C-alpha cells in the first residue's frame, strides 16, 4: 500500500500562508544550511527572500509530489520532490510540530535535488543544479 503524508498539505499550506502574511511564528527553519542558505546561494539573494521563496515553493506541492514519510529523531517527517519550481527540481522535508498549544511548520530541508528522486505517481525527478554544495 502506498504511503500517505503524515501532515495534510492543507495544514502545511495554511501555516505557509500565515508566514507569508507576516506571522513569522508560523514556521521555523531548523536546518538553515539545508534550506535558507542553499536557496540563497542558488538565487544569489538574501536570506529573507530565500525564506519567502521556500514558502512559495511549498505552496506548489501537491499529493503527487509526495515521496515518503519516515521517522527522524522521534518524529515523523514528510519528504516531497518539487518539480520545475523556479527552473529546478527540489528536495523538501518538513513536519508540523506542536508548540505552546499551537502548531508550527518546521521547514527542515528545501534544496536542489542532490540525486534523482521518485515521487508518489512514479515520476523520477532529475538533478538540475549540479553546482550547489551544502553551505555549512
Amino acid at each position, binding site marked *: 500500500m502506498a504511503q500517505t503524508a503524515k501532515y495534510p498539505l492543507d495544514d502545511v499550506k495554511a501555516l505557509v500562508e500565515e*508566514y507569508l502574511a507576516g*506571522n*513569522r*511564528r*508560523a*514556521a*521555523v*527553519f*531548523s*536546518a*538553515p*544550511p*539545508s*534550506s*535558507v*542558505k542553499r536557496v*540563497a*546561494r542558488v538565487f*544569489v*539573494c*538574501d*536570506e*529573507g527572500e*530565500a*525564506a519567502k521563496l521556500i514558502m512559495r515553493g511549498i505552496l506548489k506541492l501537491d499529493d503527487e509530489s509526495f515521496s515518503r514519510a519516515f521517522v*527522524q*529523531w*522521534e518524529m515523523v517527517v514528510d519528504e516531497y520532490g518539487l518539480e520545475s519550481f523556479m527552473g529546478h527540481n527540489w528536495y523538501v522535508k518538513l513536519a508540523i*510540530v506542536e*508548540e*505552546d498549544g499551537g502548531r*508550527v511548520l*518546521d521547514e*527542515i*530541508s528545501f534544496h536542489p535535488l542532490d540525486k534523482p528522486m521518485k515521487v508518489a505517481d512514479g515520476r523520477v525527478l532529475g538533478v538540475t543544479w549540479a553546482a550547489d554544495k551544502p*553551505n*555549512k
Partner: protein
Amino acid sequence: MAAKMRCGECGNRDLERRNMKGLMKTPWKDFPTVHLTKDLELWHCPKCGNTPYEGHDPERVDEAVEASIRDQASQFIDIIRSKADLSMEELARRIGISREYMSGIRSQKRTPSFTIWNVLKAIATDPKAMIERFDPDLDPAGSNLLLRA
C-alpha cells in the same frame, strides 16, 4: 532560555542562545563570505554547530549582515583616507564612483556592492602603496578601475 525546536541537522533539543558576532561567516547575495561584526543572537546547537532559525531569523540575519558590510566598508574608507591622506572626493574619483555614493558608504547609509567593498578592502590593506594603482589620469581610456582588465 529553553529552545522549543530541535536542531534540524542532528536532532539535538539542548540548544543554547549564542551571540554570533565574530563567529558567523556566511555568504550573502554576491558576497562570497561576510564576517559578522554586529551583535546577533541565534539558537546554536553545541552538538553539531548548526544555528536553527526561528521564523523571523532570516530577516534578522540579513539586517546584521548588511550592517556588518556597511560598518566594514566605512572603516576601510577611514583607514584609506587617514593613511593615504585623501579627501573623500579624491578617493571616490580614484575608484570611479561618485562622491555622493562614497559619502553614503562612509556614513553607512548605503550598502556597497561586493566589487566596491572588495576594492576598498584591497586598498585599505596598504593605502599608500595601493592607491597609486588607482589613478584614472594615468589611463584616460580606462578611467574606471572597476572596468579595467
